[in-house]
């Protein structure tokens, strides 16, 4: 674990300067392994149906982007994957979501446990109003995965390194996380999610509140995280989807219109609506 972290970080430092962009199509050689999959997922807010028969496979160690116009249900779908929708009263769900063969909506599933496997990063950076150290150490301490001070120190360091934030904050771990810049805050939130050691990371428009430079940094980070985590990202920015995602699903009116590897979807969409959307004719 420790060596793996070190490797990632040194690789991360190298890629920080020159942006490496491997076209997703070149990477898809073997049949990818399905990490999460939704089947016939329907969701209602009260009487209004927000998701219709969603079927989507999300592959391990790949980035799956969810795109579509506002209100199309992509964020709602994302929140189904770690059951954040449970927090909204009146939400009613039918269908199932599998995490490696386990139905996460099974009554026996513990939501708290599920969320340690499926982490989440939000649109607006939301670091806790605690120190940078505490932001990261909080969840491991809570879940008992890090107990001693030295264990936590290591975990904080490795998480920050994976999030590419270590060099910027190593000397001020005691300052409040809220005092960092927007982009740094978002990477802190990513580091915080990593510290729980999840298998899947959900990102809800993680860069939409950031300036272009910070966005680029976060995108690079997503690119690196892909090697170890399954990432599902909601984005309004089509270029971003094209840059970071191996697979892209196009949502419209609560349905998946088309899903394919990103290259094909963007260059050769099968559906007229997809083409209209990605060429900017609506949405």
């Amino acid at each position: 674990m420790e060596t793996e972290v070190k490797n990632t970080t040194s690789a991360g430092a190298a890629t920080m300067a020159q942006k490496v962009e491997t076209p997703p199509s070149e990477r898809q050689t073997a049949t990818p392994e399905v990490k999460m999959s939704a089947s016939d997922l329907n969701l209602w807010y009260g009487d209004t149906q927000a998701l219709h028969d969603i079927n989507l496979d999300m592959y391990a160690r790949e980035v799956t982007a969810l795109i579509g116009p506002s209100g199309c249900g992509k964020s709602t779908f994302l929140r189904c994957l770690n059951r954040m929708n449970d927090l909204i009263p009146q939400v009613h769900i039918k269908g199932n979501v599998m995490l490696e063969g386990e139905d996460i909506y099974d009554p026996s599933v513990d939501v708290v446990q599920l969320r340690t496997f499926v982490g989440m990063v939000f649109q607006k950076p939301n670091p806790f109003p605690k120190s940078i150290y505490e932001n990261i150490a909080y969840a491991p301490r809570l879940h008992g995965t890090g107990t001693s001070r030295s264990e936590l120190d290591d975990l904080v360091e490795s998480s920050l390194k994976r999030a590419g934030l270590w060099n910027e904050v190593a000397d001020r771990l005691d300052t409040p996380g809220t005092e960092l810049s927007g982009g740094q805050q978002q990477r802190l939130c990513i580091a915080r999610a990593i510290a729980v050691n999840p298998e899947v990371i959900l990102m809800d428009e993680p860069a939409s509140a950031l300036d272009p430079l910070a966005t680029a940094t976060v995108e690079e980070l997503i690119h690196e995280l892909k090697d170890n985590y399954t990432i599902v990202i909601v984005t309004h920015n089509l270029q971003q989807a094209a840059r970071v995602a191996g697979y892209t699903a196009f949502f419209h009116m609560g349905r998946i219109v088309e899903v394919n590897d990103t290259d094909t979807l963007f260059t050769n969409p099968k559906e007229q609506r997809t083409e209209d959307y990605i060429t900017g004719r609506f949405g």
Partner: protein
Amino acid sequence: MQRRLTGSANDPLIRARYRRESRFKAYSITALFVAFAIIVAFFTDIISQGYSAFWRAEIEVTLDYNERAERIGRFAIPEDLREIVSRGAVRSIPLQIRNNPALAGTSRTEWVPVYSRIDQYLKGKEELPPALVRQVDELKAAGVIRTTFNWAFFTSGDSKLPELAGIFSAAVGSLLVLAVTLVFAFPIGVMSAIYLEEFAPDNKLTQAIEVNINNLAAVPSIIFGLLGLAVFINTFGVPRSSALVGGLTLGLMTLPIIIISTRAALRAVPDPIRLGAFAMGCSRWQVVRDHVLPLSLPGILTGTIIGLAQAMGETAPLIIVGMIAYIPEAPTSIFESATVLPAQVFTWASEPRKAFVEKTAAGIIVLLAILLTLNATAVFLRRKFERRW
């Protein structure tokens, strides 16, 4: 060139608009001025009436512990000064001699308070017979009568003699009552608010509870006094007039205020903080304990302090539960009869003797000072810990 931007002076519509604006502004300034003038008048009146109570006249007399003084203290005072020395100062002389027989037959010189009417005369507030006026003026000129800071006002309890009456027992009573109120209302209020805000489902029942709590905050305080009388005294047999029953009654009154302000403080914590915590696998209680409560604590404390300040100034419900008693000795427990500052002010205000007028005003000054301090603490807490997310 045609000037299009400078013609407003001739445009009746624009001029009328400006006139309306300045008229409205004049009204609001007048309203502000009236409000400010009332406050200034109130404070000036209270302070000018009350400040003299913080001083009192004392007289230097030679106390002669003779045989007759063993039974009646007045005989220890030189005959010509008996009109001037406070009765309260000589009352204890027989007891002193009994407790310390060595005193008998000796004499010593001491500063003792003067009779309240003399004190009032020296402060220019009361007339005296001409003979007495002459005597007092001579004594003052000779330095036998002096004016000192009235510590006794802060260290002694109520008395039937104005020159000896102080606010100490009422202040202790207020403190005990507030302590009971805090211990009773704070945990119940905060816990209810946390449940309603963070845990409760949004259904008809919780909505009904919410409406009722809001209504409760608007119920006249005297109703709470009746409730306290019926429930605490009649049903549970809590001692009447005690700080316990007063505190519980005020606790009932403060409860809705604490619940409402706590809920507002909890609601002010941004949702992304909660979502972030949930997304890390926090249970609801962990979210509340580790993230929501620390952020809302200043708001909760502010609301509680304001609720307590309101309870502290409350008189009506306490009169109903008997806390308007004459309490010369400060209570030592919450089960003893006690009175509170506003009730003490009320008692003094209904005294016919002139010397109690300044006591009343001084009591109000002390009460206001404490309330202002409490409110300032609340403001300070809010400023210091405000929004750090």
